[in-house]
């Protein structure tokens, strides 16, 4: 570290404590969650993530917890919702950035941005009160009636609050974010490539194909970032998934994710010796996964941006 002048050095050092709060906070958060979770790790070990039990008891020896179901649920829900959101986001980003007339594209992208700022609790409320009953009546019941032999659709839908509903609402909520990422990437592709494509007579679809090819790393990054965001999402899932600890492949069945389990059990968990540490263990795992995904996603976007310059 060298500075051009002494005032520079003094300024840098005096700004440093504030700037390092971020780093200190991340470490402190991880350590705190780990410390709170220590009893669960010591008592249950690996079984915490390989067993599916939630047995509370006044007597600590009888308590037994395993987070397998919410862990599987988290990954299952996140994968389905990203799978739904990704193609939709790419087509919305392309349509609004390249194919629509300028006025219309402005309106669409502005509205998408605004929707990206709408709190997730509003998506959750909408999903729970409006979408869940509609999805059940027009989508789940017919699918179950005619395609019951496919394991995904094999169970009878009850209230409409299910893994499918949660995935759909999560997908809708992450579309604005992922769309803006893809659009950001598109805007960064130098204009000369776009001109070159049109000058050799590429059609719109071919143009789209070539640009997506160039965008590939960026799309991977957008997927990772979207996945991380969906994985940590609490409110939407807790409001729409129905909160049950059963493990099932069927998407019409209610389920749970780690955040929804925490949101539901945290208040009562304080009554038992090992319940609270178990929840902290779940959140620590979540934190580590989300941080890693975000870090990798952001590094990819940086690398890609440099390659475009």
């Amino acid at each position, binding site marked *: 570290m060298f500075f051009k002048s002494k005032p520079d050095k003094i*300024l840098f050092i005096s700004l440093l404590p504030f700037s390092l709060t971020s780093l200190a906070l991340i470490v402190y958060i991880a350590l705190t969650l780990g410390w709170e979770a220590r009893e669960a790790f010591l008592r249950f070990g690996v079984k915490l993530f390989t067993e599916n039990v939630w047995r509370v008891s006044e007597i600590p020896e009888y308590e037994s917890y395993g987070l397998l179901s919410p862990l599987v649920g988290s990954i299952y829900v996140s994968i389905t919702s990203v799978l739904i959101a990704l193609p939709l986001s790419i087509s919305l980003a392309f349509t609004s950035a390249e194919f629509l007339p300028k006025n219309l594209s402005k309106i669409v992208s502005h509205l998408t941005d605004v929707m990206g700022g709408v709190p997730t609790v509003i998506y959750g409320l909408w999903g729970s009160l409006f979408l869940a009953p509609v999805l059940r009546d027009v989508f789940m019941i017919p699918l179950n009636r005619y395609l019951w032999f496919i394991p995904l659709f094999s169970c009878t839908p009850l209230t409409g609050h299910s893994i499918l509903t949660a995935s759909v609402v999560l997908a809708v909520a992450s579309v*604005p974010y992922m769309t803006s990422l893809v659009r950001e990437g598109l805007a960064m592709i130098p204009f000369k490539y776009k001109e070159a494509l049109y000058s050799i007579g590429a059609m719109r679809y071919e143009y789209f194909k070539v640009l997506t090819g160039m965008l590939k790393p960026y799309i991977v990054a957008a997927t990772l970032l979207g996945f991380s965001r969906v994985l940590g999402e609490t409110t939407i899932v807790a409001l729409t998934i129905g909160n049950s600890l059963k493990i099932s492949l069927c998407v019409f069945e209610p389920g749970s994710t780690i955040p929804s389990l925490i949101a539901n059990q945290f208040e009562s968990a304080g009554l038992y010796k090992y319940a609270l540490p178990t929840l902290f263990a779940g959140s*620590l795992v979540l934190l580590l996964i989300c941080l890693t995904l975000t870090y990798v996603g952001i590094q990819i976007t940086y690398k890609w941006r440099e390659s475009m310059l």
Partner: protein
Amino acid sequence: MSELRYLRLRKLKNALMLTLMLTLAFLTFLPLLLIIGSITLEGIKVLLKAGVSFFASLPPKPTDVSLGGIAPALIGSLISSSIALSIAASIAFISAFLTTEFPNNVISRVVEVVFRSFSGIPSLAVGMFVYSTVVVFMRTQSLIAGAVALSIVGMPYAYVYFTSALRSIPEEYREAAMSLGMSRLKALRYVYLGISRKYLLSGLLITFAKIIGDTAPLLFTIGFVTNAYFMGLDKPSNALPLLIFIYALSPYEIYHSVALGAAFILLVTLIALFEIAHAVVKEVRL
């Protein structure tokens, strides 16, 4: 004639794919409109039924006939978000200033990466962290604990907007300030702030919007008070998104109505914040 056939094939493929993409884009766009539409419609119904007292009364009991109001949540949200914004914005601004002024320093790079990854922390984990530090320490859930949780969540957003505001200052201005012999702090005060103030303001507004709408960090930190308006910074309170969340989970019809009314108010506030932020930046001409 195979070339012509090939062209036709290309045209067909092009038309098919374009139709598919447009349909998908429309299908994606539809739910966004539906959400705004249905929340607005149902929200206005609730507001009409409850009247002005929706802003000024306490929430109802499950057996009540009248809808009551959401005053504790409004007050709690406003206070906690304002405190959170001032904490988050000051830390983020100092960090943003550091990383833009000393971009090639190792520490600046670390700070940059950490802040960018920070948004990956699930806000629920932040809530649990604040619970086991602030709440346990104070022995009660409180407005201030909620504000601390919100400030941690808001920090990375403020940082991203502030850095892009400071980095948007043209290099000539920076050089001119330096050649006049200004120190970096003076340059910030007399040159940078003036040039980037609109970007900074819009960043501030968007961070505020992020903070005021977040539920998860408040779940275990701010409490859920429905029988008092305001009891002090160190006492439990309530918040708008939290009220919507908890009432939406409850089985009572009347709570669903209150949640819809509150959601409409929150939605209008946020859209207003975004529109102002957008309008402010659009005026910038450099």
